[in-house]
């Protein structure tokens, strides 16, 4: 017979409470691990869903002016602040169409009058404008469409758009030293083409989804 060399061990636990005590730290860690697994598996919810549509409205306060404060991706790994005030002065049928615009049958053009205020050093070039009807259907401003070429930057003055997002090594070569500074307050009037019969309920302005400025149109 061989002699066993293992230490004498205490009798195997027989009460159920002992198992819980022996595994107590694993049991504590389990919900934490589950939560971490869910967070890790959901990392794309933000980039593939949340940031793909307009979800966080900033509405106008007193005087009909909305204040947007947001940090937006600058395209080169960093972020830029967007700090701007936007006011809707009116939405009306465009009496004068942009040059060369030809409206398709069954459509009309509406002019969106906006007044914006921001520090001259805030980058505001990459903005989008749209009008919506009561059901939430969005009709966007199209810079190049229906034969016309409107400004690709509908929220800033065309002749003084202010600073651009960083361009890396090309910054010096492409920056115009004689560019006019953007005024502190300015007005723009982009023209949006919508189907006939659409009643404009609100105007939305955004620099980067999901945050947007929501301005209700006067009825």
């Amino acid at each position: 017979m061989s002699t066993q060399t293992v230490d004498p061990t205490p009798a195997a636990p027989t009460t159920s409470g002992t198992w819980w005590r022996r595994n107590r730290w694993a049991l504590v860690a389990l919900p934490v691990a589950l939560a971490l697994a869910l967070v890790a598996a959901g990392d794309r919810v933000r980039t593939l869903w949340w940031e793909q549509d307009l979800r966080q409205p900033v509405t106008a306060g007193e005087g009909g002016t909305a204040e947007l404060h947001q940090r937006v991706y600058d395209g080169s790994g960093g972020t830029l602040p967007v700090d701007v005030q936007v006011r809707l002065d009116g939405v009306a049928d465009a009496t004068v169409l942009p040059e060369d615009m030809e409206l398709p049958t069954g459509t009309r053009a509406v002019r969106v009058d906006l007044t914006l205020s921001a520090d001259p050093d805030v980058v505001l070039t990459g903005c989008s404008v749209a009008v919506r009807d009561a059901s939430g259907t969005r009709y966007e401003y199209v810079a190049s469409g229906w034969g016309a070429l409107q400004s690709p930057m509908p929220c800033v003055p065309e002749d003084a758009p202010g600073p651009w997002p960083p361009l890396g090594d090309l910054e010096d070569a492409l920056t115009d030293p004689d560019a006019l500074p953007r005024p502190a307050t300015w007005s723009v009037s982009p023209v949006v083409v919508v189907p006939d019969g659409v009643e404009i309920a609100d105007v939305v302005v955004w620099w980067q989804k999901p945050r947007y400025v929501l301005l209700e149109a006067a009825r």
Partner: protein
Amino acid sequence: MSTPDATPAATPDTTPPVPVAPRVRRPTAQTLGAGAAVLAALAVGHVVVTAFPVDERVQASFLRPAVVGEPVELRYARLTAGEPAGSTVLDPDDGSLLATPGVWLTVPLTIEATGQPRALGFAELLGGDGRTYVVFTGGRSWFLPGTAQPGIARYATLRVEVPPEALPGAHLRIGLEQKDQRREDVADIDLGLTQADADAWAADDTPVLAGPQSDEPPEQP
């Protein structure tokens, strides 16, 4: 039974006895059983995952069948395919003509976006020969309708260069994203083409027109 100290004491030795490592324990039947159970669970899971096409079914596109002339409602747009045409010569309406040893197939499409502006970017032809013919921008086969504003119909002509044997029974698939159609609506349009169409078009050198995309309906010939 087990003795706490198994070292023989008869041999005189000044060195202390080598202590038995207290941590080394032989796996018990219970441990081996648990290991086997884990392996068995992994094996069963593998069999379940591979035996049933779960991933494919979860990620599959929602195919919306349609025929020529019948509007198909997609999550993002309403799409109508017009009468297909074909020839060995294509007129892209830019002053040039493109010839092919196969057949140029053109399909006029009407796109009405819903909810927000949409730019349809995916198209492919499932040929009757079992092959898939990719239609991508930048190649000779081409579909770039531009952005459709809701409520304002957009007209675009898709063109694809295929061998004649791909035409009978061909289906056209149109979707939103060029790179990803998983879990997304995709129109699956039966073009209703026959061997007679393929033979006629393969022998025809009258240029077939594929004009630019527009918000105005194309002029009827």
